[in-house]
């Protein structure tokens, strides 16, 4: 038992990896879909066990209060998405959009992606973290291009090139961090171990750290989808299989955000370094306003929710950029709420697109009549994501705005404008899709309502009541983030 508990950190890495290898060899897609779900569930359990038996941090891997939240959220959403994916791909196979060979590949890639994301989260070495994020990027590129259509290939190519430039810049930043660390902690591996870096960062050369952070923010910021660097995100969301859109929005953006946060903590611990906050707050604000206005003219349902993801990543980065106990707390909460809500919306959207046979918003009408359950799920999901009470998103957005008003009211005004524009556009489009005269296919879908129901229930529950231990936990992390 003890051995198992000590090694639970390895479980979340090796279960996905092993499963990926097995899945590559499995020809039957029903079996591999089930194995995919089972493996994700196991990984989720292993992640949960980290709460009860926190392993010691080594030179390669670490678990602290910050990344445990990311790991648990990540594995949970990966688990529910795998359940959604199982019902989604059966339809794709039936309509001939995917072949069973492609599906075998798809499942293996899904597990590899999960393993790479977990590695990025638990790596105690900024070099490993970089490699893991690169692997995660590559697997998603392959999956975005899976349909092999004109648009899918273009989206994959764009994502590939922009993502590669992003990770190249992030590597340059990583090298600069090592250069800054070398005079203090000495040559070799120690100069990349995060726990060593954070202990000694106060003595690093601030100028070099500043430069490194600019590269890291631009590099990983590309993967977060912050606005001047977001061009890949809508295409990648719109053209890939919908489970991948859910994973991209709900998980991969968070992983990149986590990398930015780690380096922000380094910057904050050095007294001479530039304050990272204003830079992040500005990029976040720009994303909110830009995405808010872009949302209005979207004609494609998945693309619309991709812009909504840019908006919400903007809100989260803005919150962490403002900093302070309250804003950090709200940022963390918002991150969790956004992951759950947005992936639930993508689950619903996946089935809606299959039922109606189109991604065009104009051709999707009267969902609540033709597919009542899906239609109402979409309504609840959209109302949650735009921040209507009692959803958890409302609470986190409220906390962010109220903590900003006290410090810099002007920024709060800009943010509220962005939120209102996004609210208006999303509700307008949702109204057209959910109500009105039905159009498009009315064939029943074999949807799995459990994943989306569970997500939305959690979001609503969090808006009404947050368990005190969770609040204490988040407050503790918020204090860590400075």
């Amino acid at each position, binding site marked *: 038992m003890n051995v198992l508990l000590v090694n639970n950190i390895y479980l979340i890495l090796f279960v996905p990896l092993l499963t990926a290898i097995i899945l590559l060899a499995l020809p039957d897609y029903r079996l591999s879909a089930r194995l995919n779900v089972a493996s994700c569930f196991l990984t989720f359990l292993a992640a949960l066990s980290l709460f009860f038996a926190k392993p010691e941090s080594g030179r390669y891997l670490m678990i602290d209060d910050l990344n445990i939240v990311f790991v648990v959220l990540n594995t949970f959403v990966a688990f529910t998405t795998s359940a959604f994916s199982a019902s989604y791909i059966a339809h794709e196979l039936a309509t001939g959009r995917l072949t069973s060979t492609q599906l075998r590949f798809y499942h293996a890639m899904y597990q590899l992606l999960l393993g790479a994301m977990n590695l990025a989260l638990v790596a105690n070495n900024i070099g490993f973290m970089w*490699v893991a994020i690169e692997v995660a990027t590559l697997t998603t590129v392959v999956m975005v291009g899976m349909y092999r259509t004109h*648009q899918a*290939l273009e989206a*994959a190519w764009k994502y590939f*090139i922009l993502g*590669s430039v992003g990770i190249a810049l992030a*590597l340059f930043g990583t*090298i600069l961090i090592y250069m800054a660390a070398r005079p203090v902690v000495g040559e070799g591996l120690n100069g990349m171990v995060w726990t060593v870096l954070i202990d000694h960062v106060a003595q690093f050369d601030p100028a070099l750290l500043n430069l490194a952070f600019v590269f890291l923010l631009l590099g990983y910021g590309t993967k977060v989808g912050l606005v001047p660097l977001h061009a890949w995100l809508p295409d990648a969301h719109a053209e890939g299989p919908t489970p991948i859109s859910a994973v991209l929005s709900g998980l991969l953006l968070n992983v990149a955000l986590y990398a930015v946060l780690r380096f922000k903590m380094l910057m904050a611990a050095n007294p001479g370094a530039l304050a990272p906050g204003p830079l992040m707050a500005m990029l976040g604000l720009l994303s909110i306003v830009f995405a808010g206005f872009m949302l209005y003219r979207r004609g494609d349902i998945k*693309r619309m929710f991709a812009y909504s993801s840019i908006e919400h990543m903007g809100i989260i980065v803005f919150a962490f950029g403002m900093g302070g106990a309250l804003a950090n707390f709200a940022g963390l909460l918002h991150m969790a709420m956004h992951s759950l809500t947005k992936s639930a919306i993508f689950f619903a959207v996946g089935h809606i697109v299959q039922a109606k046979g189109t991604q065009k918003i104009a051709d999707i009408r009267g969902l609540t009549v033709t597919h009542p359950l899906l239609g109402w799920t979409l309504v609840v999901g959209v109302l949650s994501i735009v921040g209507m009470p009692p959803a958890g998103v409302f609470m986190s957005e409220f906390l962010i705005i109220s903590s900003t008003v006290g410090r810099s009211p002007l920024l709060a005004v800009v943010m509220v404008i962005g939120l209102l524009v996004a609210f208006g556009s999303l509700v307008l489009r949702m109204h057209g899709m959910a109500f009105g005269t039905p159009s498009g296919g009315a064939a029943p879908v074999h949807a799995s309502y459990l994943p989306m129901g569970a997500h939305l229930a959690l979001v609503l529950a969090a808006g009404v009541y947050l368990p005190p231990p969770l609040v204490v936990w988040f407050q503790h992390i918020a204090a860590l983030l400075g």
Partner: protein
Amino acid sequence: MDRLDFDVAHLFAGGLVLISFMLLYQDRLYALLNMFALQAVVLALSVSWQAHIQHAPHLYITAVITIAFKAIVIPVALHHIVARLGIHRDVENVVSVVPTMLAGIALVALSMVVMLRVTHGADALAREDLAFALSVVLLGLLMMVTRSNAVSQVVGFMSLENGLILAATGAKGMPLVVEISVAFSVLIALIVIGIFLFRIRERFDSVDIQAMDDIRGEGR
């Protein structure tokens, strides 16, 4: 530090920047690929020299990977692809040569100013290596934005990556350099396979990225 050590390292790093400039104005794909192979050779020499003066034998692995993969395998593969796709005509520059070169000079000046100012603490070799490396990275980025052809964009990305390897090997005692160069090789191999396998020409009727850009997914 030995004067000779310093000068030779300088020579190779400066050579990389120079070749980056030469890449900027090559307007034929074959010439571009040859020039890139030359840059990979110089990079391999530079990495070997660093391995020698730092007494870091593992860096020789990186040098060998660079020579085998980036100076031979990738250029040959891209030659084949270019021949197969029948695009060995002129490279279309989005921006003409003179402004591109001027922008390149400005970027090198920028990276010198920035790098030399912020690296007071580091030793002379490392800081000048980093300044050269940043120049190569920025010139690679410049090439990626000024070219519209998928193959030359990939060459731009690879020269950018050469700059990163230069920086990583210049940072004395940096761990994971070999792993990172392997990871990059995988990435580049996938990009090249991507160009070929996805048969961009077949799907898009040209490898011109501008032609791809008119599909925004909105008009479907």
